[in-house]
């Protein structure tokens, strides 16, 4: 669905005359392949290049070198731009700065309006999308009256209404409280499971990616690790060096392993650790 080949992006600092003063390489020869229908996570600290990479997926940025294909379409081709953006929708970090309508249902309809969808179909999509994210009863509300998490779900509905094949969520929970965060991740997981939408979650919170199908970890513009959550979570020392927050249960398991207690790698949740420990105890 999404394929990157030697994708490279440089931010250029221009001086007063428009000449290039300095360059900063934000994405460095990245190669990746994302299959349709999967829940993918891209982890990394601020400045690792993950957001820059994300902005290539819907062609907000185009590569300085290398290529990115969305559904077989090269993002550098200008006449495919709107098809690419309809296929790959994006939800941004700031809940307020992506809502345009003064009423929830009007905002969700904004995307379909832009696509020239006929009126009746727009209303159908608005209702479907709002139901899918659990916000249908707020359809007549002003966005100003919603919480951060609710606003993000409206934003997701707004993207869903365009019938994309994949949704990129660029740090959607960074400005939310724990409840809001949980609501947004749950919504993304539901859309992935029930509607088969490919989800690409960009984040620095490791606990959000525990149930992902595949994780890419970025640092300094490069993909430094990739794999299933279990594999990634087991590499505790590396993750700490990459300035990522390993969940407490994984840290604890790692610590116990260091002390000689036979536990498997990459324990992701409390229940698993408790079970394993009880099993060990009963064998002793």
């Amino acid at each position, binding site marked *: 669905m999404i394929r990157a080949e030697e994708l490279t992006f440089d931010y250029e600092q221009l001086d007063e005359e428009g000449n290039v003063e300095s360059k900063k390489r934000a994405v460095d020869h990245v190669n990746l392949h994302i299959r349709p229908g999967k829940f993918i996570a891209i982890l990394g600290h601020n400045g690792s290049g993950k957001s820059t990479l994300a902005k290539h997926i819907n062609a907000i940025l185009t590569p300085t070198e290398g290529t990115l294909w969305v559904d077989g379409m090269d993002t550098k081709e200008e006449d495919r731009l*709107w098809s690419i953006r309809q296929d790959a*929708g994006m939800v941004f970090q700031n809940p307020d700065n992506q809502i*345009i309508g*003064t009423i929830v249902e009007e905002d969700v309809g*904004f995307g*379909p309006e832009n696509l*020239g969808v*006929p009126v009746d179909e727009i209303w159908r999509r608005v209702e479907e999308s709002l139901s899918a994210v659990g916000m249908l009863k707020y359809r007549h509300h002003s966005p100003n009256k919603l919480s951060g998490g609710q606003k993000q779900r409206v934003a997701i509905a707004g993207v869903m209404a365009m019938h994309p094949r994949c949704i990129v969520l660029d740090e959607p929970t960074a400005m939310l409280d724990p409840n809001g965060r949980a609501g947004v991740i749950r919504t993304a997981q539901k859309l992935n499971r029930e509607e088969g939408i490919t989800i690409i979650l960009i984040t620095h919170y490791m606990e959000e990616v525990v149930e992902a199908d595949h994780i890419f970890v970025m640092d300094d513009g490069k993909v430094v690790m990739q794999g299933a959550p279990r594999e990634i979570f087991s590499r505790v020392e590396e993750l700490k060096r990459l300035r990522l927050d390993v969940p407490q249960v994984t840290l604890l398991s790692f610590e116990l392993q260091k002390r000689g207690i036979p536990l498997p790698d990459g324990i992701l949740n409390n229940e698993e650790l408790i079970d394993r420990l009880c099993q060990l105890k009963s064998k002793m």
Partner: protein
Amino acid sequence: MIRDITIGQYYPAKSILHQLDPRVKLVATVVYIISLFVAKGLPGYAVATVFLVMVVKLSKVPFRYITKGLKAIIMILMITVIFNLFLVDGEVELWRFGFLRITDKGIRTAFFMAVRLIYLIIGSSIMTLTTTPNDLTDGLEKLLSPLKKVRVPVHEISMMMSIALRFIPILLEETDKIMKAQIARGADFETGNLIQKAKAMVPLLVPLFISAFRRANDLAMAMEARCYHGGDGRTKMKPLHYVSRDRMAYAVIWGYFLLITGVAYAQRLLYAMALL
């Protein structure tokens, strides 16, 4: 908290005026204002008054909301009345003090000017009280769309207005936050003369502008991500269509205008005949 303030004066109610297409209301307001200048003398103004009273009743908006708009123009009203009362030349002089005098013409002019101003404000208020800001921008966009042929960016202007409406409460809230943060650092927005107060605004305005630009940037990216590419090819979720109710309203407003013009003309005719 600040976000709960409603923009404009929209007063929700279920009246026939609320249900009219916003274009009808926009046109009607303009026509009404013009009629106030066409009308001459008491008969004309009587017709205008009857029409206004009818409209106010139909709107189901409580009277105090309607008179709220008048508070803003109290000063202009007083100045207009005083100037016309004391400085207009007329035939019959009723009172004199130096160069100030009250004449019959002065009284008439002052009276009609005041009435015109008051009715103008009430008429426009009825429009904003019965139409949501969004409907107003939609109506304006549709009405002005012929101007697209002469390269006027009607759609863009309308989009800018809706976005402004959406962000005013947010920016107001942000202003409040910035003010509080600076007050927490000892800033003082209240004391001092005009120059001092203006200087004190810098720590408020600079961050506010920067924030507004940042939001605009983010919003533009979000709009493009949702395939916004200007007005071409766009459909509308809530398209404006005239129904019979709207057509009847148009009939009423034009009927009223004809009546007022007729009365004014007849008056002029009678007056001219009386002179012969």
